[in-house]
């Protein structure tokens, strides 16, 4: 046997760009994060050919998990075709030989910024969220070492102060993104800048969610079938963004998360934020053979876990 046959062939890059040691470290960190749902695991964030703050955290996790058999979907603000999503998808495919898709049901790895797909993800799928600021306590505690102590003590009382301020000023929860949530009854997470609409999708989800912040060098996970509860006051239940009355102008769908499109005449049109889902709907209308999966919110806006979302309390 020749030595040549025993070694991997010479190439310019390691498989999936990161060197084997980096990938091994990341995989170990991911295992730790899964073992401690919601706990922020520090990791050595590697240099990548994109700038910090453009999804390096998510990209590193994706690259450490991707294989030639993977099917990758990349989402940016719900869209598959924005510059950032297209760049990342091309890079991942080129470096790993993985297939790509825009279909959330078909994908095995979904790297996303800002959104969780509308269609219910299933077991065996991994959702990788890019996180700009992993620390939920930053809103009330400027000192990061003190925040770590608070996580250790599960001392989260002050987080309700943020909600209190919103209720005093606006009479309702108004936080548009990174709405804090308790994972597995133990750790509080900032679930990346997903809208409140997407927070409930993490609860008892069949898929694995990995959240990774490249600049802050922390990653954390919501393992499959874990309780995730958004913060709320006992007498004022958590609410998702009200999407009622909004109809997607291309597909006619209602009660999904919509993008607002201001028109020149002052009116507003709405468009599905999840572009992969919109493509599938359009294709099935055109008679193509696609299977549109069940969605987390049905057409009446009911969440698929009955009773998880409580009706609002209307006060004077």
């Amino acid at each position: 046997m020749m030595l040549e046959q025993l070694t991997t062939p010479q190439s310019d890059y390691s498989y999936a760009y990161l060197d084997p040691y980096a990938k091994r470290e990341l995989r170990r960190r991911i295992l730790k994060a899964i073992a401690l749902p919601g706990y922020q695991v520090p990791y050595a964030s590697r240099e990548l050919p994109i700038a910090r703050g453009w999804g390096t955290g998510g990209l590193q996790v994706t690259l450490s998990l991707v294989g030639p058999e993977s099917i990758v979907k990349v989402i940016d603000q719900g869209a598959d075709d924005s510059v950032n999503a297209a760049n990342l998808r091309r890079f991942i495919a080129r470096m790993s030989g993985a297939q790509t898709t825009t279909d959330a049901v078909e994908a095995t790895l979904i790297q996303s910024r800002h959104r969780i797909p509308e269609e219910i993800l299933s077991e065996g799928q991994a959702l990788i969220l890019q996180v700009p600021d992993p620390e939920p306590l930053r809103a009330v505690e400027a000192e990061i070492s003190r925040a770590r102590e608070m996580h250790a003590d599960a001392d989260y009382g002050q987080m309700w102060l943020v909600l209190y301020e919103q209720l005093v000023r606006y009479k309702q929860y108004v936080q548009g993104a990174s709405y804090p949530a308790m994972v597995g009854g133990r750790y509080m997470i900032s679930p990346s800048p997903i809208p409140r609409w997407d927070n409930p999708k993490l609860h008892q989800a069949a898929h694995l969610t990995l959240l990774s912040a490249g600049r802050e060098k922390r990653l954390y996970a919501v393992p499959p079938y874990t309780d995730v509860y958004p913060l709320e006051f006992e007498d004022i239940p958590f609410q998702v963004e009200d999407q009622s009355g909004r109809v997607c102008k291309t597909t006619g769908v209602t009660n999904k998360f919509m993008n607002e499109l201001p028109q020149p005449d002052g009116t507003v049109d709405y468009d599905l934020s999840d572009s992969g889902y919109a493509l599938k709907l359009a294709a099935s209308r055109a008679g193509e053979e696609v299977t549109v999966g069940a969605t987390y919110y049905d057409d009446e806006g009911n969440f698929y876990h009955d009773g998880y979302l409580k009706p609002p309390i209307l006060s004077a």
Partner: protein
Amino acid sequence: MTAISNHRSYPLDPPRFVDAPPMLRAVGVTKRYRHVNAVESADVEVYPGEVLGIVGESGSGKSTLLRLLNLEEQPETGEYTLNIPGVTGQNLFALDRFARREVQIQHIGMVYQNPFLGLRMNFTSSGNVAERLLITGERRYETLRTKARTSLLASEFPIDRMDDPPRVLSGGMQQRVQLAKALALQPQLLLLDEPTTGLDVSVQALVLDTLKRLQRERHITIVIVSHDLGVIRTLSDRVIVMRYGRIVEVGLADQILNDPQDAYTQQLVHAKL
């Protein structure tokens, strides 16, 4: 109405703190910052419902002593007990972080000279008060509103401004927010670190009035630190005089301020601009 009938209708409280065991007891407290002895083997006893004044010049260790009593810092040596159900007999300096915080939140209220130390300047005033309740696990918004309101009213804060951030309030109002926050959980011990320094004289008098009223109504035990002998004379029952980290004289307020024995205290009492 004669003086005697007046006396009958408002009988004086019996002198509670004479035979009751001390409510606060700190023995042999020493705190060093590198080579500076900030507090050196200080013994402090405060009786239930009493107001203890600590006076001394800048750098005499009075604020450090107060921070130690608030469990914000750990001393080199010393023992600290509070005679409050649940913590009686425990040396509070030896508690772990979690238990220490519990005592601090539940049983001790603190008002700082600098409101930036005690308040979140960009959150609402009522939110600042509600924070204490949130830490102890209150999760009902309506309850928080009511309790914050009650506490702010008790400290005579103008209630129509309860949702303004302390950033936009006057110095006197900021101190009232701090006071409301300190009293939100109805602690038995209130620590005041120069609460009226930096306020103008009329506002100072109003804040002192509020403090006096609260003390009378709730029988809170108060330790007040001030370099202003007028404040000490108005509020305190007993006085501790400190210099270079040591306690040089202890006694009843009248006794210390009218007939000081120690040379330094004499100097302090007679010093006037």
